[in-house]
């Protein structure tokens, strides 16, 4: 029985968070919006782990790649997606190469793309859960 997918959205721009929430309203997902990487980490430590982390790249304080790096180290099973209007290509390449990222979404993004990536992430998560169960 599939549980509701928990998605952590990190962006300093609240409108972005709203758009994401609205775009995913038709899916069986629960979106937790936070305004910074620090809030995101705090949220992850205090509450239940989430299935997907969707982060903006450029934010006050910790940037998206660094944040997702933490996430990959502490919660490696969480699917990490970077969403950005501007990216340091080298850093992005490095991140992609080290498989710290599941996907990269450039701003502005298409709702379809986002839904497709989330769907993939859910599928991936389901497979992993299945393997965990098997173990």
């Amino acid at each position, binding site marked *: 029985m599939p549980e509701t997918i928990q998605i952590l959205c990190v962006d300093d721009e609240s*409108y972005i968070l709203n758009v994401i929430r*609205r775009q995913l309203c*038709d899916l069986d997902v629960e979106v937790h919006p936070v305004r910074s990487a620090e809030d995101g980490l705090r949220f992850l430590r205090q509450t239940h782990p989430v299935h997907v982390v969707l982060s903006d790249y450029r934010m006050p304080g910790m940037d998206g790649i660094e944040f997702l790096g933490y996430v990959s180290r502490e919660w490696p099973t969480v699917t990490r997606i970077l969403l*950005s*209007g501007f990216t340091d290509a080298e850093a992005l390449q490095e991140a992609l190469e080290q498989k710290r990222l599941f996907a990269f979404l450039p701003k*502005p993004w298409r709702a379809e793309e986002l839904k497709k990536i989330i769907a993939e992430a859910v599928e991936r998560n389901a497979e992993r859960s299945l393997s965990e169960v098997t173990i």
Partner: protein
Amino acid sequence: MLKKNIRSQVLIPLTLTFIILTGCFVYTTYRIRMDDYERGLDNRYQRVQLILNNLIANHTSYMTSAIEFIADQNQFQDAMRAKERGVLLKHGSPILKRLFSQQQITHFYFYDEYGAIVLRVYNPDDKSASMPRFTKQQAMAQGRTVSGLELGRSGTFTLRVVYPWKVNKKLIGYIELGQEYDHILKELNDFTLADFVVALDKQHLDRAAWEEGMQMLGRNADWNLLPDRVLIDQTATIPPRVVATFLATDQVSGKNGRKLEVHGRTYHANSFPLLDVAQKPVGKFVLFADLTDNISSFRVFIVQVASFSLLVCAGLFFYSFQVLGRVDRRLLENRQQLGIEFEKQAETNKQLEFEVIERRRAEESLVTLNEYLEQRVLDRTNELRQLNLQLEASHAELEEAYRNLQTHQATIQQQDRMACIGQLAASVAHDINNPIGFVAGNLEVLKNYWNKLAAFVAIQHDVLQRYGSAEWLRGVEEHRRRLKVDYVLEEFSAVLDESLEGTERVNTIVLNLKGFSRMDEKEARLADIHGCLESTLNIVWNKLRYKADIKKEYGDIPHILCYPQQLNQVFMNLLINASQSIGQWGEIKIRTWSDRENIFVAIADTGCGIAEENLPKLFEPFFTTKESGVGTGLGLSIVREIVNKHHGDITVVSVPGEGTVFTVHLPLGKLPQVTNHA
């Protein structure tokens, strides 16, 4: 030497010449005189001869006349016929006397018709037979009168005339008259005053008779005086010896005769043969002319001439001597003066020669110096030329470098500018993309929501139609019309779609601006040229869309290792140029193709074209045909720079008024291989 000799040198030849001239003159005069004399003598001889002949002829004629006179007298005729000697003698003696006294006729003969002597009138006692004489014989033979000189035995010459005595054509005898030749000669001598000698050949003479005859005539008779001749008569007192000498050499003497010296007197002699009646030469007739006086007068003349000449000569000599002496002195003075001047001149000459040598030496050194200087100048010129060339070369290099630098600078500037724009774009991109992100997202959400609402409204409408009262329905329909709900329903989707497209465009612009953020990309990478072209087209779209139709003929080309951002700039510059060349509206065609090793990108426009003279300068930095402020003149130079960096090249074909085609050729695999990050 000269001084001493000038007199003798002049005077001796002068005197000699004078003497020779005088001698010549005297000799010539003498010769002329002598010739004159001789010619005169010759003439005289001839004249004498003529006179002699005439005298003989006269005498002959006279005697013939006398004979004819006698013969015509009857007394003689009768006596003759009768042969009466006494009668003949009686009548003949007086006639003979008269004839003798007048004409010295000495001989008178009567012969009978047979030639026998009848009577010798001059000597009647001699009754001996007469000598056989030529004249008588001839007369008897020819029957006519014959005359001529007969040489008698006694050495006497007698002129005889024999007359055949005819009476009534009957010969009765002969009459002969004769005259001694001496008498004629004497007459001749009297007449001509010429001296002469008559010599007879001995062979015709009988010595005794001759001596007797001579004795009878009272003349000297020397038979032995001459070897072959005897002298029978002579008028001159010329010694017989001299005559003999002359006659002995007579044969060799010339026609003008000979000169003889006798007793201090000079004679000129000439001879002619003495002929008897039979034309037989019996002796010589020698004429003498006494030249002594003539010669002495001639000598006097010669002496006078010679002495006069000598006098004149002496005078001239003396005068010349004086004059020459003076001349000599003057010459001496002049010579001395000349000597002094010559010495001076020599000294001056020596000085001059010395100066000339000095001058020449100086000239030589000058020439050497000159040559050296010329060489130096030449060397220096060459060096300078070399330096100049080097300078020019380095100048050209510098210019080239400067131009390159300018190009580089321009490239860098443009790249910098583009990089700045890129960086700006990059920094702005996030700020723009965020709002664009949520605008676009919200629009999509709105679309989703709208679909839901529209569906819901439709359902409500259906339900109302099915179950609502007519009055409600009418009220709802009225509101629906007033609010233009159908129009809204119809338009809503379009509004959302157009808004979404707007956000997309903003996104594209921002993305493309970001593309220029890194012009100095360090590493080449594999890229799709079509992607580059598209990216560039997006950026310049706003500039092109109102100027031209864009046609794309993309061929199948491989990815190429390149600096894509820089190629973007190449394409952008070419596309912007193309759009600027088009006045109102045109077409820009982008064509790509490749062979195995190259990729070609051609960008063609239908613009104004490029003038042919501008084609070579097209890629030079700062060359522009655009108005001031419109173009920097760097665009195409940057293009070439970038294409060169890719080891490619760019060519241009342009027809003014029709358009231009730029073709970029990029070789494959020229750039170093890098890791593919894609």
